[in-house]
């Protein structure tokens, strides 16, 4: 057995033991990447059946309200304008189709690995307006902030950003306050924590008296995090712990936080299905109005809507499982998605479509002697 398999096997056995002692528990995976990584790594199959994982609002594409999507589509329809975006957003359907559909009809849509690629494109095409769709949580927001400052320094006047950035904690607090989903603890997003620090979650844990563990995305990391969480739940200790110490410090990355502070301010933001959550989004400060695409193009965001019958709203809140939705795997598939939970690769419905059907639990792997 490889080193990794041995380490995994040991952790799985410990998790089963703690789980037996503690009884059934429900834990929220705040981050969509954890949902998918647990499946992809094969580790999910080893979790005890009594250990339930509930998906949270941690998929930026899934929680982006339709108003933002439709505004992006309107921009793509403008001649002389290129919409630059991370790959995640390209297939989200709006009223007039998705960016991918529009690109097929001749709209200028550039898929980027980094926002800096969009700045370079703007520099190379001075006659074109380039608008970058900035979605993502605190992991990605510092990059947007730094990019705007870089564009300012370089004098790239034909570049602007449509901010769809959101903050994780206000959404988690809103969900907890609603009290609809009984939870015993939280698996905290590893890379958001790199920026905001593990201590950012302390107020929420204290207020709701639940334990939470910051963990990374490698299989051993996730199992360590789940084990620690199970132990804290069993001990009824509402502590915040961090097993991703290689990347996450208690205070996070203050330089990155300062960038966010400098360029953005907290604004009320509309979340799909969760409605408007106060101070949960990031909007450009007045000082950077020149780079705000919403101001530059006088955009207004229409009301949020879910396609008829779509349960994405409930799925995001952890109130429904993908299988509960009448469209799941019938009218709604990754190839022809109806709602964002299916179109986003880290959406809960997409994860369940790819890995959750025909999913089976495995017994804990046999341990090597010793």
């Amino acid at each position: 057995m490889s080193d990794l398999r041995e380490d995994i096997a040991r952790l799985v056995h410990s998790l089963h033991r703690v789980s037996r002692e503690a009884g059934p528990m429900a834990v929220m995976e705040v981050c969509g990447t954890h949902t998918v990584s647990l499946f992809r790594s094969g580790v999910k199959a080893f979790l005890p059946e009594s250990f339930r994982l509930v998906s949270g609002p941690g998929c930026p594409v899934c929680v982006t309200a339709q108003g933002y999507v439709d505004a992006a589509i309107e921009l793509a329809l403008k001649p002389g304008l290129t919409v630059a975006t991370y790959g995640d957003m390209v297939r989200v359907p709006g009223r007039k189709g998705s960016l991918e559909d529009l690109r097929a009809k001749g709209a200028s849509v550039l898929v980027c690995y980094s926002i800096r690629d969009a700045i370079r494109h703007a520099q190379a095409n001075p006659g074109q307006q380039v608008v970058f769709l900035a979605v993502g949580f605190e992991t990605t927001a510092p990059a947007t902030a730094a990019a705007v400052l870089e564009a300012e320094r370089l004098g790239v006047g034909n570049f602007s950003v449509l901010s769809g950035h959101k903050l994780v904690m206000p959404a988690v607090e809103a969900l907890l306050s609603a009290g609809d989903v009984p939870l015993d603890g939280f698996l905290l997003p590893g890379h958001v924590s790199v920026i905001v620090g593990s201590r950012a979650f302390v107020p929420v844990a204290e207020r709701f008296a639940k334990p939470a563990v910051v963990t990374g995305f490698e299989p051993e990391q996730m199992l360590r995090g789940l084990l620690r969480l199970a132990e804290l739940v069993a001990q009824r200790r509402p502590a915040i712990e961090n097993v991703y110490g290689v990347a996450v410090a208690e205070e996070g990355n203050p330089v990155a936080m300062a960038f966010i502070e400098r360029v953005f301010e907290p604004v009320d933001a509309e979340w799909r299905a969760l409605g408007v959550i106060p101070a949960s989004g990031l909007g450009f400060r007045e000082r950077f109005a020149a780079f705000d695409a919403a101001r530059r193009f006088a955009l207004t965001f229409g009301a949020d809507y879910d396609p008829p019958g779509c349960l994405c709203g409930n799925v995001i809140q952890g109130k429904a499982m993908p299988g509960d939705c009448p469209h799941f795997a019938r009218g709604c598939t990754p190839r022809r998605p109806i709602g964002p939970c299916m179109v986003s690769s880290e959406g809960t419905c997409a994860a369940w479509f790819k890995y959750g059907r025909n999913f089976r639990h495995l017994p804990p792997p046999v341990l090597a002697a010793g």
Partner: protein
Amino acid sequence: MCLGIPGEILRISGDGVSRTAHVDFQGSQVEVSLSLVPEAAAGDWVLVHAGYALTLLDAAEAAETWRWLDKAEMAREVGSAVPPRAGEERP
């Protein structure tokens, strides 16, 4: 939320918000912004997300956490910082 992977800084250019590094990911090189980690230096390992380094990483800890990193490759570059696992040979 977040795809972030470890890479090694090869060389640095620019300053301030335009400070960038060529970061190596086991043989692929991407130009990465260092604006969020001003203390980063050539030879350092960083966690990279969407073209930005988010934090410094200790090379040995990184090898422990991201098991798919080529440890022989890392040991060659980092020197003695990455201890081989029991039974593993040094290159």
